């Protein structure tokens, strides 16, 4: 769930307000968006991909809120990490350009178990 909009980092572009699929944010009076409907957050992490200032933090816990410490997240390099992995932002290589998925069969484990009626554990359909 979304837990943080860093006032220090935010450049008030309102991109997160526009792109959040579930409309979690409101524009803030001081320019920094507010998390207005946290319980609507679907933990999709996409706002982090779009934020140009690495100002957002989505916690991995989808069904509970947690306390976060901005300084700690910054020190550990967590802020902006998902955008960096996707490779958005100046000077970065897009993950799409170094995608290993098409070659994944080359490292398949010898014995795989494949439950039915359960998605994508190994090759869903193809």
């Amino acid at each position, binding site marked *: 769930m979304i837990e943080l909009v860093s006032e220090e980092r935010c450049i008030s572009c309102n991109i997160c307000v526009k792109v959040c*699929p579930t409309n979690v944010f409101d524009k803030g009076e001081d320019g920094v968006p507010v998390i207005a409907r946290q319980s609507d957050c*679907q933990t999709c992490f996409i706002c982090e991909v779009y934020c140009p200032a690495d100002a957002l933090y989505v916690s*991995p816990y989808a069904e509970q809120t947690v306390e976060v410490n901005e300084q700690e997240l910054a020190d550990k390099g967590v802020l902006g990490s998902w955008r960096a992995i996707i490779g958005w932002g100046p000077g970065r290589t897009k993950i799409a350009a170094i*995608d290993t*998925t098409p070659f994944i069969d080359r490292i398949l*484990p010898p014995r795989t178990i494949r439950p039915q009626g359960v998605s994508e554990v190994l090759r869903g359909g193809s």
Partner: protein
Amino acid sequence: MSDSAERQLTADVLVIGGGPAGAWAAWSAATNGAKVVLVDKGYLGSSGATAPGGTNLLYLPPDKEMREQAVASRMKQGGYLAEPAWIHRVLDQVYTNLELIEKWGYPFVRDENGTPMRDHLHGPEYMAIMRKVVKRAGVKVLDQSPALELLVDEFGVGGARGVSRQDDLTWEVRANAVVIATGGCAFLSNGLGCNVLTGDGYLMAGEVGVELSGMEFTRKYAPSPAFGSNTRSRLLGWATYYDSDGNEIVGGRQGDFLAEALLKGPVYAIMNKADTPEKQAFLRKSHAIFFLPYDRAGIDVFTEPFPLTLRYEGTVRGTGGIRIVDDDCSTTVGGLFAAGDAATRERITGSASGGGAFNASWAICSGTWAGKGAAAHALSHRQSAATRDLKPAGRYGLGGVASSFENVVPSQELIKEIQDQVLPLTINYFRTEQGLKQALHRLDNVWNRVNSQTPQNVREQVRARETAAMAATARWMYTAALSRKETRSGGLHGLAEYPGQDEEQQHRLLVSGLEEVSVRTEQVPVSGVAVTAVAATSEEVQAG
């Protein structure tokens, strides 16, 4: 909704939904000469099941033998409810369109021989490109603008109405053709990107008398971290599963072991089949989203156990949806088309799931066909939609009709009641006649109260309508499931009382109706004619 909307637009084609299906439909309609408006509940580029993660696709070279083989295997897997001509058509069309995506800037990797590998798309990249392409084609995009109901007259559909949730105003788009591309219905189960998918398009279509097909093929759950949302779980192929005592859980009867194990207690996994740093690095560069929640929770998935759950996916990786009756993805109602997960995918997947490659390919192809069909339909219309005598068709969950104050029901309460019947493995995975009957009875009870919601603001208005859509979808699902008294190949439907596949039931089931739900059977069409793919115009190919 009040009589005149605050924002009024007229176009040839209205596309409802901005996932891949809607994006392709809008692009296709616009490149075929139509004036197009696309509305999305969230945002074209970030919203829906594809955007946050990504999808694997069908990318088979046009080798006759290879394709025949793929078609034959899918026919069997899909319980012979699919149609070879339609599978071929998708293989053709998706091949062409993936080339286009590369021309538009998607950086597909190449193998050692320089062959482009176009069988996987990272969601954020793909959908950002689609947004650009759609806008460049001249489509007007309204983000954060959920559609609530269709507009109709005696000739068919002529647009829709909805709300712009960030400006707090109502909109109305009149258009002689409408493409429903609202995705599937995952019942707010918190799967990746799926909480915007509440079956709105099914309800809209149902209200104008369109049937749904394949709604019984909805027994679909995806593994996800117990604490998290990530249902992109293909990498679990490198995992070993354990119970809470650390005993390995081995794949058992009929592949139901994960669901069975979860009924007994917590299930954990360790990605210990990726046993070298090279393999681990390799996997991190494939489905990166898989690692994100665990990394953030401080779990090293290669050495430490992590807790799993199964999240219900409804029609997203299930197969049912709006029945389409022609090659252009038109429905039985004039001017109404459906694409992507909003449409049934039975024509290419039969009774099996399209997750894993078919669904994403279908979104591309059905969007392309529906957009072209919608453009042709709209451009052949004699009258502008602006002057048609159109009326809103919405009847349920639109608020304002609770008979007395005491009858008012909060949406949240109804949502909980719907989820209680739809999400549990005991009801919806391990399906029994008795279990489904009881659940359906409770869902009927919810249905009787959907019009007692009294939304007070735009957010509540959207929720109330979503609630009605989920209730309708759930009733269609279970009605269809009770009518298919067998267990068909693919794992997407079975009843404990009827464990085998029954040749007599090698037909499709169509459901319709809202007050009373009815079911009828349809024979699988035997289409001998191979239908050709829509060729990209030469101009488009060069545009990239």
